């Protein structure tokens, strides 16, 4: 069974093409290390993919080029449509959704390969069934987990965290079921002998069903603010699923590319967890927040301590400021305030103010979420500072504007008092001369604990929707400086 290319070229040519594709993927990632070369890197990586797919399609005998072509056309069309029509604020769920499709494809490929091998009279060897089982479990968990995560980010699925023993028991039960089905698949692949059902490899589909339920129950209890970790972890899974599929099919391009993605997702996961000072286990199974028994505590802290301010007063502060740091949070994304914030920063910059963004690694709903939003609003990337860079500068900062962020600026994280965020690295905005906190209300952030920052003497609250408040600041500042 050989395609056009295979008739004329030695076997090694296919491997060589895969090697080139692998090099392109790696070079593409290397170019991603700098914003200037990143676009080119993405294109190089896409070229590698194009090469790998083209060569594979031409190499293997495609019995039904019609079906393959139709699949590519349908998938490509949907992909382009989704990418072009998506709003920037919906980016996290779209990335999650795409990720799920990758995992789902891995699970389907492994199943199809099993059926195909059996139908063409081959025997199901242990390495084939074992890797198919792994690809099936990871792929199904990734698919359903990603769908739930995307649903949470899109607001279709409730995003509050829940941690129950029943939930844990269900997870263990279905993980067990998937593993048992996998063992059956490996040990007794042809359990049903010659019955008509046998050609379907039922044990594989039992495994897929159990892993699917597991994927759903794994992500449903995890809160919305922990989605950056979940999305990054699922990204890693889909890479590992691809690598495992590579082991099933003996395909080197799949192994290299899948492993790169697996590493990327895992590194992002670790970065996210470290930025919250929480273990991965705690994120996945802990069910942080959700309990509101801190209510009284909150009144004690805030009572009589909250100073409210107005856009006019803030502008007066900004007029005399030499250095301003803006700390964006998920609230900025929700209100789609990034353009207004960017305009304010531009204005300040024009008037000679040293102005920067201080961005916490877990602000938002996916890794680098704030950076992506601000880039969309044309903020130069050299104005976006990471936590370690910006923290030492707060003591020389006149005004810190916190826009829709809460837990990531909570000074309680620096105290070892056993609060849910204790030990988490935070932006020490309180060291600035004046702190302006723009929020809709005093309600707690995801961690569910009050924020003593709001009650500090040098903090003023600018209550209101982030977009409207920032727009007011822009207008007032323009008027004042004209």
């Amino acid at each position: 069974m050989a395609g056009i290319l295979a008739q004329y070229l030695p076997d090694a040519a296919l491997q060589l093409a895969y090697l080139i594709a692998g090099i392109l993927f790696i070079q593409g990632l290397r170019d991603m290390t700098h914003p200037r070369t990143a676009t080119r890197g993405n294109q190089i990586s896409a070229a590698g993919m194009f090469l790998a797919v083209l060569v594979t399609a031409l190499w293997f005998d495609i019995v039904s080029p019609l079906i393959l072509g139709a699949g590519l056309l349908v998938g490509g069309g949907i992909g382009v449509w989704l990418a072009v029509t998506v709003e920037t604020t919906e980016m996290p769920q779209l990335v999650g959704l795409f990720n799920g499709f990758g995992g789902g494809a891995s699970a389907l490929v492994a199943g199809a390969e099993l059926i195909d091998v059996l139908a063409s009279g081959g025997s199901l060897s242990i390495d084939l069934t074992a890797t198919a089982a792994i690809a099936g479990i990871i792929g199904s968990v990734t698919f359903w987990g990603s769908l739930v995560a995307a649903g949470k980010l899109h607001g279709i699925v409730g995003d509050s965290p829940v941690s129950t023993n029943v939930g844990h028991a269900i997870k263990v039960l279905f993980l067990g079921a998937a593993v048992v089905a996998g063992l059956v698949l490996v040990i007794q692949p042809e359990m049903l002998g010659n019955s008509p059902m046998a050609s379907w490899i039922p044990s594989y589909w039992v495994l897929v069903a159990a892993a699917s339920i597991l994927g759903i129950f794994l992500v449903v209890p995890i809160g919305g603010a922990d989605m950056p970790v979940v999305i990054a972890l699922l990204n890693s899974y889909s890479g590992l699923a691809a690598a495992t599929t590579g082991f099933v099919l003996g395909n080197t391009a799949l192994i290299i590319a899948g492993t790169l993605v697996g590493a990327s997702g895992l590194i992002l996961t670790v970065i996210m967890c470290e930025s919250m000072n929480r273990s991965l286990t705690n994120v996945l199974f802990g069910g942080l927040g959700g309990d509101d028994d801190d209510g009284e505590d909150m009144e004690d802290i805030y009572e009589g301590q909250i100073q409210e301010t107005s856009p006019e007063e803030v502008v007066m502060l900004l007029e005399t400021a030499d250095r301003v740091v803006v700390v964006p949070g998920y609230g900025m994304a929700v209100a789609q305030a990034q353009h207004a914030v960017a305009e304010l920063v531009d204005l300040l910059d024009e008037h000679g103010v040293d102005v920067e963004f201080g961005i916490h690694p877990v602000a938002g709903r996916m890794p680098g979420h704030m950076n992506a939003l601000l880039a969309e609003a044309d903020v130069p990337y050299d104005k976006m500072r990471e936590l370690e860079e910006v923290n030492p500068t707060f003591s020389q900062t006149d005004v810190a504007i916190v826009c829709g962020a809460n837990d990531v600026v909570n000074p309680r994280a620096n105290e070892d008092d056993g609060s849910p965020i204790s030990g988490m690295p935070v932006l020490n905005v309180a060291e600035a001369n004046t702190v302006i906190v723009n929020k809709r209300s005093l309600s707690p952030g995801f961690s569910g604990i009050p924020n003593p920052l709001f009650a500090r003497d040098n903090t003023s609250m600018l209550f209101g929707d982030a977009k409207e408040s920032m727009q007011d600041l822009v207008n007032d500042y323009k008027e004042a400086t004209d």
Partner: protein
Amino acid sequence: MATELSAFVTNLTLFVLAAFVGYEIITKIPTNLHTPLMSGANAISGITLLGSVVVAGSGSNGLATALGFLAVVMATINVVGGYLVSHFMLDQFRGGGN
């Protein structure tokens, strides 16, 4: 069996080396670019498309072909969508760096 095992070890070698290369490169990518990185890496994971192409093409079995077709559609969405989304995002980063 011996050749199967050595093929597995060869694959394992690739896996381990790729993991090291991935670790070295990806830890150097700045936080700024983590969203496009994720979306781009995501597109790469759609490499399962290769597997789908092989499976959708190789067999005469109707069910395998149908599953293969579905896998091709899903993997293509992942690849095309992932690269495009990354591209749009990265374009904005470049536009902002004037």
